[in-house]
């Protein structure tokens, strides 16, 4: 079936192209309804990725966070009209040891192949997760981002030693906020401190035990483990600050993306015997855990609603540009496209 794909062909330029979805491939067809813009999409849209990367990846449909409705399911697993969350990670092999989101062979939407800015998205049946009708689709649209936090927290649970009196999260942006919400939901007994730069943003972390400005951290303040949710140019400062304030044998979970290599104080990493682990993306299990938490802890949805930014109805390419341009000028929050293609 012919399918309309809205690909970014050059920075700030979307064009209509078509592909042909094979109705006999066993894939299910989802019609996206709510799509959420991520920093990674913006790096392509604004042409901030290196020129050779842009040349290699474009034209490509952006967006890897979204929900949609089942249109066609030859497997009979779903009914037409069922709401589902789409999983962007697409493994092509099974591995008993390595998680699907770390397999080098896995493809990722809006990175290795077309993302969700399409009329229909064809997916293997295990690449969607049912969405409870009670969950607001606007909030559910950025479940992928949430699942990345959940994934990192689950890994923390298997890697970090058992002394978990105080955990710190560096970063007061969307990722820091989401990681903090879910950490508190999954480990309510652990004291959670937030380290950021913007008092206004940090005031939203009402569920955390304390917040600190990164320029005024008490020298004797120590944490057992930390999550770095900063990324970009500030990664170096954040990671080295964590190294200064972490107890021996603590774990540092890095989630922030940086375009450049980051120098860190390895002498102190050695002296303290720290474990630093990276987390990126997520897999089906993380989505299922996230959706289960939405159900078990409904207050999470309320907290997540605080970071919903502009909601833009998209029917034309001009609307797509408007959504991305609006997203650039936000200070915090997620820009959601109400996708009506």
């Amino acid at each position, binding site marked *: 079936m012919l399918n309309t794909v809205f690909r970014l062909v050059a920075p700030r330029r979307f064009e209509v192209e078509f592909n042909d979805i094979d*109705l006999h491939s066993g894939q299910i067809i989802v019609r996206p309804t709510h799509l959420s813009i991520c920093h990674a999409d913006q790096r392509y849209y604004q042409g901030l990725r290196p020129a050779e990367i842009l040349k290699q990846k474009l034209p490509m449909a952006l967006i890897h966070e979204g929900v949609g409705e089942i*249109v066609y399911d030859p497997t009979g697993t779903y009914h037409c009209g069922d709401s589902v969350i789409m999983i962007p990670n697409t493994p092509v092999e099974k591995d008993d040891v390595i998680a699907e989101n770390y397999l080098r062979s896995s493809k990722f939407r809006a990175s290795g192949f077309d993302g969700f800015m399409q009329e229909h998205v064809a997916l293997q049946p295990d690449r969607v997760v049912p969405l409870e009708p009670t969950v607001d689709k606007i909030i559910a649209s950025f479940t992928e981002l949430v699942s990345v936090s959940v994934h990192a927290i689950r890994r923390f649970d298997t890697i970090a030693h058992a002394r978990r009196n105080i955990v710190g999260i560096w970063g007061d942006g969307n990722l820091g906020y989401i990681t903090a919400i879910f950490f508190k939901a999954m480990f309510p007994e652990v004291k959670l401190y937030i380290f950021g730069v913007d008092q206004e943003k940090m005031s939203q972390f009402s569920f955390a035990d304390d917040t600190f400005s990164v320029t005024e951290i008490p020298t004797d303040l120590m944490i057992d483990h930390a999550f770095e949710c900063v990324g970009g140019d500030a990664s170096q400062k954040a990671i080295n600050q964590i190294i200064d304030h972490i107890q021996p044998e603590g774990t540092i979970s890095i989630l922030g993306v940086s375009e450049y290599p980051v120098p860190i104080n390895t002498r102190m990493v050695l002296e303290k015997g720290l474990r630093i682990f990276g987390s990126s993306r997520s897999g089906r299990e993380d989505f299922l855990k996230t959706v289960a938490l939405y159900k078990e802890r409904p207050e999470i949805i309320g907290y997540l609603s605080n970071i919903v930014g502009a909601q833009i109805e998209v029917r034309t390419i001009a609307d797509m540009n408007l959504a991305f341009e609006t997203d650039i000028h936000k200070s915090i929050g997620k820009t959601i496209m109400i996708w009506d293609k």
Partner: protein
Amino acid sequence: MVFGVILAGGVGSRMGNVEKPKQYLKVGGKPIIIHTIEKFFVHDEFVKLIVLCPKQWVENTKNLVRKYLGDGADHVVVLEGGATRNETIMNSIYYIEKEYGLDEETLIVTHDSVRPFLTYRIIEENIRYGKEYGAVDTVIAATDTIVESETGDVISSVPDRAKMYQGQTPQTFNAKKLKELYLSLSEKEKDILTDASKIFVIKGEKVHLVQGEVFNIKITYPYDLRVAESLIQDPKNMK
């Protein structure tokens, strides 16, 4: 009940020297008519898809549907079209009446088989507004200035472009209403009213507009075929 009615009655006389009617030409390795049928096939509201084509192409069309849709071919019935576009639509209504009966809720979404680039949204809005208003036309705002000429050599008027739209398909109708209106026309009126939505307008019925897409093109000329082929080109795997 909602029915998809795919109009493939044309004989392709404007297509140059090709032997086949244009809807049977391949684009992206698949006959255009199959692309169009597939767009309707995945829409779960249709009780049945009715394809109407020239008599000598009925068997061939059935074969194509079986080849490309497999078991899904049961969802499609191929019938012979009429002498005119409206007669072809009437054939679909007679079929529905015979097999399912006509009532106030019977809706037909009629579509040119040579417009394979229509979208799910266009079909969905045709059904939604069809249920609400009883008649729907799919249009896009005119980009060229429309010029009217009574004689063909001088302008008689230049209508305000802001009020001009170009008609596309689908066109959606309450089947019972369309049948009543059509049968009330004189033979002379039937000759003039080549467009089904015009019948509604002439009879004072409201026809709701649905926004089409610029790319919902009608493959009419060899040029269109090249455009269509280039639109489908997919340079990457796993799209």
